[in-house]
């Protein structure tokens, strides 16, 4: 029962966090300053998310040669080819190889 109620509570909280700005701001005329700031949401949050995904249980960012080399090459491939499949293949291959032989 506790588990069910907890899941429902988090489900509601998750939906609200995703809906609140869309529902409350879509019909408003936003100040120009805010519109400019919103353009930076995607690059700022997604790159912050990349780092956050590497945080381990001790609160350290677990990044070494395999991660860094994979990021650099995957970023380069994404820039050159604009293709997610190539980005993924190159990134994971570099990561595995650097982890094994690096």
């Amino acid at each position, binding site marked *: 029962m506790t588990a069910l109620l907890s899941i429902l509570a988090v489900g509601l909280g998750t939906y609200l*966090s995703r809906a609140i700005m869309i529902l409350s701001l879509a019909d408003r005329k936003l100040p120009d300053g805010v519109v400019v700031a*919103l353009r*930076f949401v995607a*690059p700022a949050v997604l790159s912050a998310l990349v780092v*956050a995904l590497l*945080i381990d249980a001790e609160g350290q960012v677990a990044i070494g040669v395999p991660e860094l080399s994979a990021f650099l090459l995957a970023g380069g*491939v994404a820039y050159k080819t604009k293709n997610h499949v190539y980005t993924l293949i190159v990134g994971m291959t570099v990561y595995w190889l650097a982890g094994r032989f690096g």
Partner: protein
Amino acid sequence: MMPADREIVRRALRDALPLFAPIIPFGLVFGLAVTESGINHFLGWSSSWLIFAGAAQLTLISLLGSGTAAGAAIMAAVVVNARHVMYSAGLAPTFKNQPTWFRWLAPYVLVDQVFAQASLHLDDAPRDFRVYYLALGSVFWIGWQTATAAGLFIGPIVPAELNLGFAAPILFIGIVVLGIDTRPKLVAAVVGAAVTWLTAGLPNRSGLLVGAIAGILAGTIAERVRR
């Protein structure tokens, strides 16, 4: 469905496919967490459609399983999910031209991958954006339900050494790179990552929020300096 829509759906599927790779191991990890938590398996899996947010589900289920008080577990999961408020804000201007039903439905499937990919299509025609977004959302919804269900059975037997979860940060790097078309956006991305790193010790990865806000501010300032 009009022929043009079919083309958009096809493009959405093509864009979504590689983003799928990290969902599979994540779903397996989650399934494993459910089986270890002592929570009813069907109920644990049901969080996939009741919550539909992998990181928050994993946080909630593992904390409940470890005997954490429900209130604290719920709080932790909500903090993990707070970044969605920023996704919602980032998409809000695009929803100005969308019908009410879509404004209420879209947030339900606003997971990281959908936001990341949709953020590259903010200036599409309203109908095109809607078709693209719904196709993306459906793919990730179905994929997540399936992966977590499978995880209940095969999560316990997949070798951890493959580190398939690393596919997620790799793909997000790619999407960040594709979205950077001005110097202020580059500033936002670099500051966002750096500040998250500096605040990594904060509980429940909430440094992510500090980093994201710092990145947005830095980008805004850089934009102002440029003018």
